[in-house]
């Protein structure tokens, strides 16, 4: 009895979480009638992919898709490289100024860095990086959260391994690249997947840096769809479904990495 009540409660909350996705999908799959009518359609009567085909005809969605993949892949690569390099000495080396550096990194969490783009746009302009993917990627490469998670990971590696390598005369670089990085591979995967989703979802900064519609990532391009097809709600819904499909798939298949990422943040 208790279990049934438990499931009912879980189902009720799950409906609130998932319903907007479901309704958007139903809207995208139906072709007939007005979506804003009482009673609304909660089940596609004659599902068809016409709206999706319309999206492919209306906007260069393959280019958007390719741009998103490119941005996400480069952000992940550089974030893992630079943030793990920064996290390693913070976790395992004693050097002057460690506390200060760590404090500065933490401070970026408090300030409203969400509007840093106002000045960053000036910087990117001065560096002649407007309309380049480098300009889109660079400001997102180093984040406090990634450094904190990877620092946590490095701290869990037993000290004996490092001492043994030092006795053998290994350089700091060898210890880092040959011993430490492979040991924290699961954590790199976690940070990588979180970063990929974040980069895929980012929409304000890329819309500022990139001016040519062909070079937009999907997150920006889908809003462009709203601009050109103000009336065709069903096509917008289809574009929306296409935009979130990759992140949803990535999330569902790698759920455990998301859960572990949070696990580390708590400690």
């Amino acid at each position: 009895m208790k279990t049934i009540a438990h499931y009912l409660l879980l189902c009720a909350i799950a409906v609130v979480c998932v319903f907007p996705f479901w309704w958007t999908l139903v809207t995208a799959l139906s072709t007939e009638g007005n979506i804003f009518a009482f009673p609304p359609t909660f089940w596609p009567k004659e599902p068809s992919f016409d709206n999706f085909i319309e999206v492919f005809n209306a906007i260069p969605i393959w280019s958007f898709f390719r741009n998103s993949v490119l941005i996400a892949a480069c952000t992940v690569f550089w974030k893992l490289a630079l943030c793990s390099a920064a996290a390693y000495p913070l976790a395992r080396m004693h050097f002057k100024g460690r506390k200060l550096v760590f404090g500065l990194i933490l401070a970026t969490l408090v300030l409203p860095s969400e509007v840093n783009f106002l000045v960053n746009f000036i910087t990117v302009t001065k560096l002649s990086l407007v309309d380049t993917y480098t300009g889109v990627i660079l400001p997102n490469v180093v984040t406090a959260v990634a450094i904190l998670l990877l620092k946590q990971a490095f701290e869990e590696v037993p000290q004996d391994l490092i001492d043994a390598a030092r006795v053998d005369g290994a350089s700091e670089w060898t210890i880092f690249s040959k011993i430490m990085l492979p040991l924290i591979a699961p954590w790199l995967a976690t940070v990588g997947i979180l970063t990929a989703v974040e980069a895929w979802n980012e929409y304000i900064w890329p819309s500022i840096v990139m001016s040519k519609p062909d070079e937009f990532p999907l997150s920006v391009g889908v809003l462009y769809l709203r601009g050109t097809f103000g009336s065709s709600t069903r096509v917008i819904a289809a574009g929306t479904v296409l935009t979130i499909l990759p992140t949803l798939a990535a999330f569902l298949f790698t759920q455990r990495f998301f859960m572990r990422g949070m696990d580390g943040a708590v400690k």
Partner: protein
Amino acid sequence: MRNPMRNLAAWLFLAPALALLAVFSFWPVAFGSLLAFTDYSLIRETHWVGLDNFRYIFDNEMFVTGLKNSLLFLLMVPFVQIGALSLAVLVNNQLPGIRYFRAAFYVPVVTTVSVVGIMWGFMFHEQGALNYVLMTLNLVGAPVGWLSNDNLALFAIMFVTLWRGLGWYMVMYLAALQAVPADMQEAALLDGANRWQRFWKITVPMLRPTIMICTVLSVLAALKAYQEVDVLTQGGPMNSTFTGLYYAYDQGLKHLKLPRALAASFVMSIFCIGIALLCLRYIKPKHR
């Protein structure tokens, strides 16, 4: 074990990351704060104008509303935190299929905000699903203009931020719950403590550090909310849904009034720092 070589190595490891942080995280704060006191624009010479921008924004209805709304957003914090902790308790078990529920609760977190805006735009439409459900349940008599009524729109946006945020904090709490040693629970059970007592006397004290971190993060997130405003109402109707940072975004990006935008973001920074310090002071862990 401090030697000069290792000192150098440490800084070499840190250098690339620190360089990028300096350019894209610290420079915007420093240079931005400075520009807030000038009349900077791309086409003219820059002059020092003292507090003019601040005077302007505090006389401006949109910013003052925005500041009030940002503080109003703080009302969300208890809902998000209590909701997320309750959700975490609900899914912290091995019932069959529980991982699908966890996934369902987390899905809104991994959805891009532009898509969230489009989806909830559908939901909140006067002829949309939300009104239909509420009318069927006889909770409202006529369709409600969730995003077109200036008394309701802000709360509609706050609800969307709650919807987007719950899953994230739930996972934080779930991880913390799973770290509570099982033998402590068992010992209390043997001593005859009921479920409720065990929750309040064992689980909550063990969770204190997590509750503290999540509350601070949630307070900061509430103060900094603006993306949902952009994708749902763009500040309307009648400027009723401006937030402090949305004003900065709107002035800086849409009206190209950079100094005003930076003055607004400067004020918000002060609020964030002040409130973060207050939180850290008052919700320090009791133990340790």
